[in-house]
């Protein structure tokens, strides 16, 4: 016996307008009378409409998992279960997509098939951390649903105090700015810490994010504990003939206004022969000129990545951005990638040993100081780690000579 569709006068107002309507989608599911999830989605609509009217949420957490894992399912129990019993349980399965979020129509359809069998038919592509979120499943269906997806090659993502699902930008797959193999780096990092993801026991959550260049399409610096950002050490590759063609087409003023004066480090100038004068020594690898003149300029040949640690949102000392701890790691050979992973391992170990409960890496560094953190993970200080040296004389410098000697030793030695 099919339930009636709930009255949703407020939600209905979200069906008009040019943007695709999630309400229409929810209604489609609720009206799929041939599907097991139709009642659930009717009640879900009912509860959501109630939220719109009362401006209150009605979900509570709880504990739900799959065998062998301690995280990856977000449990949701309704406070209005008496009124909306069919959606009394509405858990989410966080499933990690292929790096870069590439799909075949076929694999997506297969995932839909499984989800229609066990869940609500509602899928978020994707969550802000990068998971496919299969939203709306009853407790008893969680395990079989996961098992089928797992058989298809998918695994649960992170939740709780563990390693979280990661994002790498599209990068090498379709972007000329890519400075290394982002998908490889991201998979290597996350897949090395699956234990910390699936059986979370870190002080608090830990996120990796990977962007192939300073454009940071993965929002890594501000939204991850361990940000890997592509860059290069040598000179920008420039096709000066192409520059001249661009100047001929768009004019010198265009080039000056859109490129030269926007260089943050004043590293650019236009030569009289309409070629571009690049002071690579001054360049901060910001990507702007390369973005605008993508056909003429590219990152250098000696490519790799910068690692920044400690980005996160507000809790509890205010937003923190990651800050540079490894200015340049070459990323070419297998060993190079191993070295990146090794760094991640050291960071993770230090985090586990030193962070307080519910303390993110950024907060830990704020508490103990960057230098102590660097010493803990075995990295040397470098001027690229700071915006500027200290402005405050409150420091005990009696180890100066030793520290200076270290720098000189490192600095004399080849890179």
């Amino acid at each position: 016996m099919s339930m009636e569709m709930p009255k949703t006068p407020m939600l209905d107002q979200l069906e008009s307008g040019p943007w695709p309507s999630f309400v229409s989608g929810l209604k489609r599911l609720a009206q799929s009378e041939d599907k097991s999830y139709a009642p659930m989605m009717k009640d879900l609509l009912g509860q959501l409409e109630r939220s719109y009217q009362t401006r209150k949420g009605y979900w509570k957490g709880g504990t739900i998992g799959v065998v062998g894992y301690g995280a990856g399912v977000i449990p949701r129990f309704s406070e209005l279960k008496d009124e909306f019993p069919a959606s009394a349980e509405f858990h989410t399965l966080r499933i990690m997509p292929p790096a870069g979020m590439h799909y075949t129509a076929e694999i997506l359809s297969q995932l839909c098939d499984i989800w229609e069998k066990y869940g609500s038919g509602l899928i978020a592509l994707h969550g802000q951390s990068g998971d496919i979120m299969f939203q709306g499943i009853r407790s008893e269906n969680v395990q079989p649903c996961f098992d089928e997806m797992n058989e298809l090659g998918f695994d649960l993502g992170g939740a709780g105090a563990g390693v979280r699902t990661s994002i790498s930008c599209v990068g090498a797959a379709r972007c000329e700015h890519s400075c290394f193999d982002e998908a490889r780096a991201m998979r290597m990092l996350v897949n090395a810490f699956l234990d910390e993801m699936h059986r979370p026991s870190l002080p608090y959550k830990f996120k990796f994010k990977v962007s192939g260049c300073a454009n940071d399409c993965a929002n890594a610096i501000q939204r991850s504990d361990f940000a890997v950002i592509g860059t290069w050490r040598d000179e920008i590759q420039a096709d000066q003939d192409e520059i001249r063609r661009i100047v001929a087409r768009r004019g010198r003023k265009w080039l000056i206004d859109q490129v030269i004066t926007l260089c943050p480090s004043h590293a650019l100038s236009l030569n009289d022969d309409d070629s571009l004068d690049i002071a690579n020594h001054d360049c901060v690898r910001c990507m702007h000129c390369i973005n605008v003149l993508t056909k003429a300029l590219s990152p250098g040949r000696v490519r790799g990545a910068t690692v920044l640690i400690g980005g996160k949102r507000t809790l509890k000392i205010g937003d923190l951005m990651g800050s540079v701890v490894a200015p340049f790691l070459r990323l070419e050979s297998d060993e190079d990638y191993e070295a990146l992973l090794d760094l991640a391992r050291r960071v993770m170990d230090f985090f586990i040993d030193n962070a307080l409960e519910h303390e993110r890496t950024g907060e830990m560094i704020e508490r103990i100081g960057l230098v102590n953190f660097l010493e803990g993970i075995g990295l040397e200080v470098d001027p690229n780690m700071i915006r500027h040296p200290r402005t405050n004389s409150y420091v005990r410098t009696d180890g100066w000579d030793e520290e200076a000697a270290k720098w000189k030793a490192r600095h004399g030695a080849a890179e």
Partner: protein
Amino acid sequence: MAPPRRPVESGVPDPMPFMHPLLRKNYGTWRWHERPRPGVLRHVAASGDEVWTVKAGTQRQLDVYTVRALCAIATDLADGHLRFTTRSNVEFMVGAAERVDPLIARLEAEGFPVGGTGNSVSMISHTQGWLHCDIPGTDASGVVKALMDAVHHEFTHEEMPNKVKITTSCCQINCGGQGDIAINIQHTKPPKINHDLVAGVCERPAVVARCPVAAIRPAMVNGKPSLEVDEAKCVCCGACYPPCPPMQINDPVHSKLAIWVGGKHSSTRSKPTFHKLVAAGIPNNPPRWPEATEIVLTILDAYKSGAKPWERVGEWVERIGWARFFEETGLPFTKYHVDNWRGSRGSLNSSAHLHF
């Protein structure tokens, strides 16, 4: 009974089997790209191969019908492949120029707006809201839908000075992250404590530790262990609510929206920046949040007409100065704009640089 199935801890899947063959073939060897029109990218590889990407918006919270519709489009017109951006836009790749228009036509016919590339307003960072989260002060899907309706033209056109990345968050935790423009919940009253429940569900020391301003202390209320909030100290952040649901921070009237501008993740030109508060006290007004929408449109208008090419929202304001930002948008400037959090002295004007 059979032993339970052990998971295969396969981790992040290898994308290669799912990647469009042209992307796979030219992996790591792309040379340059251009945008022939809004919603379309043309990437050229060192091999000479070209790939045309058509990008379209989705509602993110997708019903299987919509997912299958996208799959069908991929199958029919894009070699069976598709990918998503974190902003929940979908991308279809094809190897030839003439295959672009049919894709656009089909997407538009099925209601997917084509755009979101280059200097457009892309899809808004989407969070959970009343649909799924256990702590939201507002909805996410509805806010996103209302706003995307309002900026639809800016999604399908590239008329902005630079990319505009909008974010929303349904509580002050801010899963939506920093944005050129961010529309976030901002509570205005301390939590109301349901003292009867505290003892049963809250680990009191953990809750006390969670408060950023140490405003919570354990207390006995009606003879039961509960908590007490020093309302003079409380900054109404809601951080105590997730670990202790009886500390009701959400309120249909007093949980307001605030709008922030100038967040930037990229290190392009300027360094990454946090977004800054520009408007608060905005009613949390479902189903279409007209007051918030109007402010967002006002800011977008001012940005569109005032910024120079490539200036992101924050870079534009930085150049014209905050005095003028408030003047041009007509938004009031109040004492709440003056940061008073730890380390905020750096946000004061310690110079004779002045905008009149």
